[in-house]
């Protein structure tokens, strides 16, 4: 049985983690919300979008007579598309994401959480439904969903490397996969193909640490994965640099290739850079396809 003070301190410690993440995400989202409105395409909605000439197949009911009377051609009035979309997030919570090469630097996991939550805030504020892949948190709308997402995003996993969750994907929904993609590529490929089969489009976003991008190590070293399941010993780490970088580039190419095949977008981000540019990129990438 947990004594009262213990419970309370633990509860407070847990609770203390929520507001910073949320606040960070909201602040990040706030920088993007300005001037980024609408779907920019015709569809069902209330707001006027554009007039277009009548095309064969348009029913007469669709013609906007007031506009057509001013010219010889007939026009159809279109409204901006306002159908809510479902966006599903997969954020890699595995141990490898907990890596940061410097003490002051942010871990990849933190960056992924902030990015995903900020993205969720943006999407929910513009009326979309956001949830997590898998069955834990299906897409919903509303501010309350932000809190639920925050809570879910704060759970760590103990596995060394994460595998994308592609079960229970809603057909034709959007998906965002945030991970370092250093684990098993076959699982990633399988998940992506499975999602693509269900008509899901989305973004693959690779988050890496600067050290993983540059491999600044020298001398004799034993490299271990974060969970300790993998290890590799070298006598001269600097000799490995070029080959490591080659392998990393190859992996990126494969991801890019997968994305092209499945119609997804691929982006990568370095925790040494600002989160804002990354968020902007993901948001734009989603928007073009939405």
């Amino acid at each position, binding site marked *: 049985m947990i004594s009262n003070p213990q419970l309370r301190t633990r509860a407070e410690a847990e609770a203390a983690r929520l507001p910073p993440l949320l606040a960070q995400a909201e602040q990040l989202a706030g920088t993007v919300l300005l001037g980024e409105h609408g779907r920019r395409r015709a569809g069902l909605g209330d707001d006027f979008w554009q007039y277009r000439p009548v095309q064969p197949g348009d029913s007469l009911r669709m013609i906007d007579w007031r506009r057509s009377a001013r010219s010889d051609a007939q026009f159809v009035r279109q409204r901006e598309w306002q159908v809510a979309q479902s966006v599903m997030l997969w954020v890699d919570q595995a141990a*490898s*994401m907990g*890596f940061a090469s410097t003490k002051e630097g942010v871990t990849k996991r933190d960056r992924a959480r902030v990015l995903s939550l900020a993205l969720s805030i943006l999407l929910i504020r513009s009326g979309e439904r956001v949830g997590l892949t898998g069955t834990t948190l299906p897409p919903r709308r509303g501010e309350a969903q932000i809190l639920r997402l925050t809570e879910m995003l704060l759970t760590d996993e103990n596995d060394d*490397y994460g595998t994308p969750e592609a079960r229970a994907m809603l057909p034709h929904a959007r998906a965002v996969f945030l991970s*370092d993609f*250093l*684990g098993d590529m076959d699982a990633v490929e399988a998940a992506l193909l499975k999602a693509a089969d269900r008509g899901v489009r989305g973004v693959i976003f690779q988050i890496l*640490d600067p*050290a*993983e991008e540059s*491999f600044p*190590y*020298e*001398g*004799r*070293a*034993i*490299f*271990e*994965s*974060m969970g300790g399941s*993998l*290890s*590799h*010993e*070298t*006598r*001269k*780490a600097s*000799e*490995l640099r070029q*080959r*490591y970088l080659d*392998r*990393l580039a190859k*992996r990126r190419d494969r991801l890019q290739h997968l994305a092209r095949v499945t119609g997804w977008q691929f982006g990568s981000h370095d925790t040494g850079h600002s989160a804002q540019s990354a968020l902007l990129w993901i948001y734009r990438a989603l928007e073009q396809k939405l």
Partner: protein
Amino acid sequence: MIAGLPIGFAAPWVLLGLIALPILWILLRAIPPAPIRRRFPGVALLLGLQDEDTVTDRTPWWLLLLRSLVLAAVIIGLAGPILNPTDQSKQGSNRLLVLFDGGWASASAWSERMAMVEGILDAAAHSNRLAAVVSLTEPNAPRFQPAATWKARLPGVLPNPWQPDPTLMGSFSTTLGAQDFDTIWLSDGLSNPARSGLLQVLQTHGDVRVVENRLGLMALQRPVVDGGLLRITAQRIGPALERDVTVQAHGLDPSGAAAVLASVELSFAAGEENASAELALPAELRARITRFEISGEGSAGAVALSDDSLQRREVALIAGREEREGLQLLSPLHYLRQALQPNAEVLEGPLGDLLPAKPDVVVMADVAGLAPSEEAALLKWTEAGGLLVRFAGPRLAASELARSGEHPLMPVRLRVGGRSVGGAMSWGQPKALAPFSQDSPFFGLQIPDEVRVSAQVVAQPDPSLASRVIAELSDGTPLVTRKEVGQGQVVLFHVTANAEWSGLPLSGLFVQMLDRLAVLSSADRASEDRIAGTIWQPVKVLDGFGRLEDGQTLPGVDGVELISNDLGPKLRPGLYRDGMHLLARNVIEDDNRLTAADWPNDIQVEGLSTPPSENLSGLFLGLALILLAADVLASLLVSGRFWGSRQVAAVLAVLLLPQLSEAQNATAIRDTREVVLGHILTGDRAVDKMAHAGLVGLSETLFFRTSVEPNEPAELNLETDELAFYPLLYWPISTDQPTPSPEAYAKLNTYLRSGGMILFDTRDADVARFGTASPNGRKLQRLAAPLDIPPLEVLPNDHVLTRTFYLLQDFPGRYDSRDVWVEAAPVDAVKIEGMPFRNLNDGVTPVVIGGNDWASAWAQDGRGNTMVPVGRGRAGERQRELAYRFGVNLVMHVLTGNYKSDQVHVPALLDRLGQ
């Protein structure tokens, strides 16, 4: 010796370890540096990658070289390398005798001699020889012991201020026995009659090496006064080259501090053994010279102490009216003048003119009446230490002086008329002098037969007469009487100063008597008859290096022995005193000539220049340590663990910067935030505890009664703590507290000058009136001597301390003594008409000194209870209350300065005083 290098090894076999170096090289090459474990998620991409270059895991060649050097340095260090090893083949016997002359003449190059002996002993220790060190000035039978033992005792061997005694050297040669030994004789280069004898004896025991200082030796003669000039003469032995030396005259400057009063250059011409120079100095300056010294020579022979011979006493001669002008030989002053002029400055004139010149002696020949003002001045001068010598004569005999009662300026009462013996109207023969008694200052002087006294004034019998007679006639009538007057004395010769009444002035005894009375300075001191029978107490004695030591503990020396005996353990060179006389016994007296030692031709005399062998192990091992430290850095570098430059800088900064005490900073912050009273830690726990409790009590009182709200009092260690934060320091005096260091005194003076106040408390009720006799008082005087304390006075009634908060006139603590001392008010402070106080507006007194044990009266424990009883009953409580009030006034005075001294407050104060 190894390959021409002057390096030898104590344990050469250890050098075989150097063979192991190539093995180490191979081993180190095979063992790569230890890996670092790193967490790295990207390891998934590394799996299966092979190291291409298998050579790179080897230790780099420069690191290998570094480590090999470390090992080589350790091996060489352990092998005991020695610079300039002595040649083992040269030595014969297993025993070695190191013989010093050990006199003052050895002192000039003592450190070089010692360094050489150390080298010799080191070498002897390496070859396991037994050694003995003997100084010929204190010859003992040689005790052969391991050389290392002697090396440890070497610092205790010091030169003596006398030269080896030939007879002792002779007896030393008999103590050598039959053992075989080699001898190294560190000679000082001066000849000695016993030298060749001892040398022959030593040569029968083994090899003899003689070492001398090639630079020679210099000595200073006693300077002589020659026609107003000081003639300074130095002599030398050794190389006859042209050489300049400086002789300095040391003495006291007018403030009493030791100083170099004059210096003069002496130049030895090539081939000359003597050099002299003349120095003109004012008599006053000359009298202050205490010693002459050849600078840089550093031996007792290069020091000439000066005594009375450089001083000339000023003697004022005063006669009665000179009626018989022209009859010089009958003049009362003629014989005095003759006796005094060679050795003293004689002043003549009216007494009123001479006294302001402060003569050392006033001689009055047949002077009876003096004007009252002159008499008063003369009495005052005598009481201040003057010597008044009076001679009788017809006028004195005829006058009424000292007839009815004792006159202050006469040693005895005189009978009317005097007496004449051996005249036409009397019976008997003129009287001779009786031998001087032992108590007399004239004891030991030879009395010439021809001295006869035919007339004299006669002393009135008196109980004190016997003790005042210092010379008498054969029939027991006093001839010379003496009386102490204050610090001075009056001496009366019952005869005239001319040959009218006696033959005394015609004899040599007259001058000697004047000399014994210290009328004359002992200019020609050497006459044995004048010095016979006196005992001279050593005041300062010289050591072998020519430094002055206190000689008061040494026994006195007979006068004749002092000037004629050779120097030795019983007769040290130095300054000797007998009464008013000061006599110097120097190492070099007038008849001493320095002569160089003459060694036989078969003895090769070496110089002191042999470089001592030096042990280099420490150097090599230290080098190994430094290389090891470099290896640590290099290993870090190679294994990639060498951090970025920032971390290295941080580590270095932590290592190099002095550790700042967090605690001290914390106290400083606490104590500057509030008013904090401080007390000085005395080291006596009971006193410190009471002082702390007292300040706690005072702080509480201040807190409750005033707007001063002090924090917990601070305990201050004078050596380590900063004083500037504390407005008031309480310093209880205990007899055994340590005297602060000069730095601490500097800090205290800065504190006092910048407006701090120290309350000194002797805690003894000031029973002895301002620290004249009580132990705490004396301790306070010693402690406070280096402090910058202004003139003090007893706290006056109108001092601002009496009214800064409470109106007080008593300042009791546990004791109730009124004597509390503060800075004296300026003399020009005046009391304005109608005002109760003087106008004292400037300056807070930097010290308050008393003995009332205030801390005990103030002391409170943690619950506010008083800790020490004060007085009895309600009176005691009243006294404690006054003590608190004094404390409050004191703190207010410190914090507000002389604010309450402003006359603006006068009406209110008058009102409160009820006036």
